[in-house]
């Protein structure tokens, strides 16, 4: 049996990395950062974690160092957010193409300008296509659990891809809440030692990341895409195993009170918890509403989503980022294309809420659902609208 403790969620993420017995942490310890790498630096300095802590000079270097250590066969971890993730942009694509199983916590925050350090999903949505597996946590326990899950999946020889575990900045990262921390033995049972499929070794030299001329680049991209799509099986399997050992169960798409619901909300991340309570309140009032929560963003859970929306008239997708000048929020656009051609598909409505730290409240969910019911009556299907805008 583990212990139940009060803990800041950032510290819980670091404790998960410690229990995973990481070998190397490379991070840039300055704003924007979190207590995740700060706590790991402490654990290493205090001798509680036998790992190499590499304090680099930028986020670009942080991920570069992670690629090096992962390629050398070390279990590798880092964390970043917002502008820091943006500075990693170039290297993100290299990490996935080189199939380095790095685990990175992304503490989701807005991108500047205007300068804003608060929570939304602009940082991660700008990195949608970088070839990493991307999961989203709704609370502190899930942050802890998904971190362990990430190591198990990334290092699976059928996968060998880097993973980002997303958690909402401040809303989760700075929250004190109860976390169940398992015994080291239980974690060992779930997470075997890292056995690299291939590694940089002076005695058995190989090259990683050479030039991909036009004759091979397409094939390399196809392989990566197929690998990411195929990772869904091992991802689900690792969640099933997790449930057996720890008793907490996860799925790529999770539903809440969707039975016979006419309107479905769709959310990602910590607002899903508020949305569940909003659904309870509205169901009390007789509103036919349910909730779909996307836990797995990459690879996109196409089949699971299509199954989850079955029977609903209207699907209201809540985005936490703007695809500026685009046809809708990034999640909404993808959901729309995922449902394209599905017989009797629900009407898809796009709402964008909670930008740059604007609170997403119970009331806002009720407003979005009421608006969706209005649109359904009118037979209207908009592309997107921003919620809670203060009109001057």
């Amino acid at each position: 049996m583990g212990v139940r403790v009060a803990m800041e969620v950032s510290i819980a993420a670091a404790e998960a990395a410690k229990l995973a017995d990481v070998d190397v942490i490379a991070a840039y310890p300055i704003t924007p950062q979190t207590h995740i790498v700060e706590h790991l630096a402490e654990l290493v300095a205090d001798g509680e974690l036998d790992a190499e802590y590499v304090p680099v000079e930028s986020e670009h270097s942080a991920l570069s160092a992670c690629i090096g250590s992962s390629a050398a066969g070390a279990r590798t971890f880092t964390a970043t957010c917002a502008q820091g993730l943006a500075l990693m942009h170039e290297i993100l694509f290299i990490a996935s193409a080189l199939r380095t199983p790095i685990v990175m916590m992304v503490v989701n925050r807005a991108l500047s300008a205007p300068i804003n350090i608060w929570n939304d999903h602009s940082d991660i949505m700008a990195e949608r296509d970088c070839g990493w597996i991307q999961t989203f946590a709704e609370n502190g326990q899930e942050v802890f659990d998904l971190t362990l899950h990430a190591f198990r999946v990334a290092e699976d020889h059928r996968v060998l891809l880097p993973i980002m575990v997303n958690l909402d900045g401040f809303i989760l990262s700075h929250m004190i809440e109860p976390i169940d921390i398992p015994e080291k033995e239980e974690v060992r049972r779930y997470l075997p030692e890292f056995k690299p499929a291939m590694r940089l070794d002076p005695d058995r030299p190989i090259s990683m990341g050479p030039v991909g001329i036009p004759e091979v680049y397409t094939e390399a991209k196809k392989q990566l895409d197929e690998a990411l799509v195929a990772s869904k099986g091992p991802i689900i399997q690792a969640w099933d195993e997790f449930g057996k050992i720890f008793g907490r169960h996860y799925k790529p798409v999770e539903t809440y009170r969707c039975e016979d619901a006419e309107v479905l909300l769709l959310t990602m991340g910590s607002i899903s918890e508020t949305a569940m309570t909003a659904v309870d309140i509205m169901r009390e009032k007789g509103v036919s509403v349910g909730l779909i929560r996307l836990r797995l963003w990459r690879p996109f859970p196409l089949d699971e989503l299509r199954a989850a929306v079955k029977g609903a008239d209207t699907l209201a997708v809540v985005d936490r980022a703007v695809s500026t000048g685009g046809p809708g929020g990034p999640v909404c656009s993808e959901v729309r294309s995922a449902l394209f051609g599905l017989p009797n598909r629900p009407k898809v409505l796009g709402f964008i809420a909670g930008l740059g730290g604007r609170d997403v409240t119970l009331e806002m969910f009720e407003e979005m659902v009421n608006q969706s019911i209005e649109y359904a009556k009118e037979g209207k299907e908009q592309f997107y609208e921003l919620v809670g805008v203060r009109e001057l």
Partner: protein
Amino acid sequence: MIEIRIHGRGGQGAVTSAEIVATAAIEEGKYAQGFPSFGPERRGAPVTAFVRVDDKPIRLREKVYHPDIVVVLDPTLLEVVDVAEGLKDNGMVVINSTQSEDEIKSQYKIRSRMALVDATKIALDNLGLPITNTTMLGALIKATSVVNIDSINRAIDRRFGPIAPKNKMALEQAYKETRVEQ
């Protein structure tokens, strides 16, 4: 569910007091959240922190808009912040003040029950600093039963280490001296 909003000034430890109450509640086997109002951190500026405590898992990630309890760490905040904003009908405001209930009611928009203590003096006497967060926790648990004094003291031990005893003395003195309006 009990929701608490703590008003302080940057540097007075409002966030730490939210953390301590949440930690104490979790140690009692309850569910809790303790979190700051996320803004630029400036010493002396008005800040808020929040706590939720419940017997079942808490599925809510918005700020606290309708608190059951408000704690005011600094008497000068009454001049600049509507501390009773959104307070529930049977709510309670716990204030660090040398004023009487009647004086406060006549000067500010507070109509609810109050608990009052001169926490600045107690903090100065015990800690040598006008940092009132742990002192006001003594007032909070005198006025409400959100968590018990033993679990609060254990949370303070863990959070403050060598300076925990002084903080617990301040807390205990405030617990004794707090006047709770019936």
